[in-house]
């Protein structure tokens, strides 16, 4: 009996040791920008099973831990882009004014090379949004860029669901060219857009009532499940976050008044180039704003902006994030955050929060990511220099403790890939046909998705 017990204890100890040494990563001796508790010099971070286990000096790890020496380097939380259309095989369902039935999850493509490039810019998490062709657009996906994994691994399991709303020129189709015989889509004005939204909420209220009646056995026949109205009911119940594309402050204010009327909170005003004009009204409602750092005037309704937008909003207590809305700009959001120190003088940590903790708050995932804190997911970027310096680049990007981008590894692999390309191009199957070929597209890559170009475009 005694022997048995001792064997049991030995086993338990063995298991405990295993658990302790399992999946440990120790990053040593870095300057850590925590994005919540200031900057820590010469600091180690111990990661265990994907979570930040300890932050401190001279930390020890189990024998099998992966050790990363970060002497002279800077660490920030993984960057979060609160407005992106990357890795999507379709952006807009432009046919209807309400496309709440569409789900970005259905069209995600985990092999999009833009994901890897975003990782190389230190981005670990993104809010993938439907385009802005509709008053009420599709359901978003909040993902981590676990490049190389199957799509289901990208989804953050406890991220609250969201949905795209849009106002202004895009949903009223002011830039649309009509094909012969095509009827212009309602709405054609800003007031029409608001009416479409109100109408949807009224329909959703009736829909919910029909189901409530059925569940209370007041009716015999089950109502039809309507996947257009279900997500709108979720908005009314406070379960789904509204991310509202818009430029003019009057429109964003109108939307917030509509939300007041129906009893929900708008999660984020997206773009919000004029948000500085209504900062107190936004702050009072606890609504977030996600903006570009300093770009405007690319369309008529985008003229009245200033680079001090973020500063004024921050001063008024609004949670502000800086987004990219572009595969290309996503890779330098650290520099967009740095600009906020220049315009108005947002403090360094507050500026960093605008691409880390603040978007995490706006997306409802700040319990698990967005800052370097014990207990949070180890979503970490190791930078060669201070991330607000134009000379810095991401050396390593980790998500939940796993390395998804490693610059030295990337550089090492390049000759290998070049060799593979050469071999592949020599294969018959990859050679250009001798005759009957179509002309190549020159240049093949059109720079879409810059600012909100991709948003009002027709279906892709």
């Amino acid at each position, binding site marked *: 009996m005694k022997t048995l017990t001792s064997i049991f204890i030995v086993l338990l100890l063995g298991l405990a040791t295993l658990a302790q040494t399992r999946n440990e990563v120790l990053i040593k001796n870095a300057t850590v920008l925590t994005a919540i508790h200031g900057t820590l010099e010469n600091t180690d971070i111990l990661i265990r099973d994907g979570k930040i286990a300890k932050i401190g000096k001279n930390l020890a790890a189990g024998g099998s831990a992966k050790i990363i020496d970060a002497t002279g380097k800077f660490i920030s939380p993984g960057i979060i882009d609160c407005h992106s259309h990357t890795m999507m*095989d*379709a*952006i*807009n*369902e*432009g*046919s*209807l004014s309400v*496309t709440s*039935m*569409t*789900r*970005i999850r*259905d*069209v995600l*493509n*985990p*092999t999009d*090379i833009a994901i890897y490039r975003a990782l190389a810019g230190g981005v670990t998490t993104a809010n993938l949004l*439907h385009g802005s062709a509709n008053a009420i657009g*599709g359901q978003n996906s909040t993902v981590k860029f676990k490049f190389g994994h*199957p*799509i289901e691994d990208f989804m953050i399991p406890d991220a609250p669901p969201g949905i795209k709303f849009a106002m202004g020129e895009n949903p009223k189709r002011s830039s649309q060219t009509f*094909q*012969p015989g*095509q009827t212009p889509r309602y709405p054609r004005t800003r007031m029409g857009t608001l009416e479409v939204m109100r109408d949807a909420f009224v329909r959703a209220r009736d829909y919910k009532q029909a189901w409530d009646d059925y569940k209370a056995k007041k009716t*015999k*026949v*089950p109502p*039809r*499940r*309507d*996947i*257009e109205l279900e997500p709108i009911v979720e908005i009314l119940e406070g379960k789904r976050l509204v991310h509202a594309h818009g430029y003019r402050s009057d429109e964003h204010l109108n939307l917030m008044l509509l939300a007041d009327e129906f009893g929900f909170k708008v999660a984020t005003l997206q773009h919000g180039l004029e948000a500085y004009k209504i900062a107190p009204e936004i702050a009072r409602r606890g609504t977030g704003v996600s903006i570009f750092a300093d770009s405007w005037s690319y369309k008529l309704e985008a003229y009245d902006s200033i680079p001090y937008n973020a500063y004024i909003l921050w001063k008024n207590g609004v949670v502000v994030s800086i987004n990219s809305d572009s595969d290309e700009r996503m890779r330098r959001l650290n520099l967009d955050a740095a600009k906020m120190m220049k315009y108005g003088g947002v403090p360094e940590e507050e500026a960093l929060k605008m691409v880390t903790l603040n978007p995490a708050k706006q997306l409802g995932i700040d319990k698990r990511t967005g800052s370097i804190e014990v207990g949070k997911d180890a979503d970490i970027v190791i930078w060669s220099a201070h991330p607000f310096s134009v000379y810095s680049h991401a050396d390593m990007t980790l998500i939940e403790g796993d390395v998804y981008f490693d610059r030295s590894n990337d550089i090492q692999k390049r000759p290998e*890939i070049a060799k*593979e*390309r050469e071999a*592949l*191009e020599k*294969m018959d*199957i*990859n*050679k*250009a*046909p001798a005759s*009957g*070929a*179509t*002309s*190549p*597209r*020159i*240049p*093949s*890559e*059109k720079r879409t998705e810059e600012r909100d170009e991709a948003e009002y*475009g*027709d*279906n*892709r």
Partner: protein
Amino acid sequence: MKFKIVLLAVAATGLFAAHAGAQSFAITNAKIVTVSGPTIESGTVVVRDGLIAAVGADAKAPADAQIFDGTGMTVYPGFVDALTNVGIQPRTAAAAPPGVVATQLTPQANSNYPVGLRPEVIAIDELRGGDAQFETVRNAGFTTVVTVGRLGIFNGRSAIINLAGENVSGMIVKSPFAEHISFTTVGGGVYPGSLLGTFSALRQMFLDAQRLQEIQKMYAANPRGMKRPDADASLEALFPVINREVPIVFNANREIEIVRALDFAKEFNLKAMIGGGQEAWKVADRLKAQDVPVLLSLNFPKRTTAASPDADQETMDILRFRAETPKTAAKLQQAGVKFAFQSGGATTLLDFFTNAGKAVENGLSRDAAIRSMTLGSAEILGISDRLGSIDTGKIANLAVVKGDVFSKDRFVSSTFVDGKPFEQKLVTPSTAAGRPPTTTSPGAIARVGGNYSITIEVPGQQLTGTMALTQQAGVITGSLQTQLGTSPIKDGKVTADGFSFAATVEFGGTQVEMHVKGTVAGNQVSGTMDSPQGTVSFTGKRNP
């Protein structure tokens, strides 16, 4: 007495008919690949009354049998193309008389859904009987195909047919076989106009079908006090699909498309199959776990764009995809995923066998390759009790092949479809099996120049346009004009029976490269326009 004579006459007619039907054939001294059992190095297959009457090394040809000397030949079960659109007529009649809009000829469909979202479409309504139209396919060795249109999100319900018969009812082996879905859009600014909408529209339709079935049952049980449910033909066509009585084939080639199909099948508990599956090896584990067979395309991806120093490099993803596709079959075999070969819309059926040969070069066993176009296919299609192997009592579908079936010098000397023989004469070595005979003598150049008025069949709408072609010897210049604008034509050439050229059109804000092929007969023109978005057909006439 009179009565007796009438009786006699009836009897005589009956006898005659019986005699004609019972005509028998024997292929002697041939190598017989039975597929179900060991290969017989030299033996006889006896065919009588449409069925295999006897097979074996010792089988005797009956006295009344017409003998086919099989010396040096190999007899296979007739090959099966597990997914094609052979025999399907375009949904709008191409041969509309002048002044009649083609749609007037087709009956009005009373569906609540736009064209392209109508699962009730059924292949047998779009088929025409008659042996002649299947000659090319039969001459390649095929006797049975799964056929369905390729338009729309719902391609419709397919049919398994044997490739001979004077009427459609006599050709059908099984109908409907499956419902078919492509992840495409309906176009024309109508919902769903993007992949996002496609999934949502499908999801809503399947939910609506589930509910309609439930409510119809409630109503049938007790109609009193209940609003009469709709009789919706589109949704009702989905009942057997949601009840798992009819499989659903998702056309999906790339990994992510297959994953989406599997996710959708799981969401609604459907009996799914993958049509295409070029990258299926990447999801072999899931295919096996969900017990989803693959109708595996042998239309391997090819580079179609010309080389140009100004163009961007092709992506590694594309280069690797083309290199890996011939290995898919072997990898599926190793993983234990069931698959049947299909032509995948290949422009020439020769690719089917040549590419099956490439799959063998890349690790698939020869037996498995043969199986995947005979008995293995029949098993997946649920018809292996009646065809797919050379066994007594099965349908006499046979392919008699000279030379290695996977090699270029293969020649199908005859096929038997439902016991009916079709012989193919080996004319010249250049007229290989599967290639339709061309009537144009070499050297003669067709005259194809002129102005054409054309109608382009884009799913959900019709575009009209004109083509102005100027011909100088074998070269064509000119322009293509449609509602999308005017585009100059490039690389214009005169072909054996028409012309081909490339053009760039702007559509929905992007530049779309199209490759146009036309066949000219008199002043009639018909053909196809290939683009990365898919293939559409056009018809028209040359203006005097």
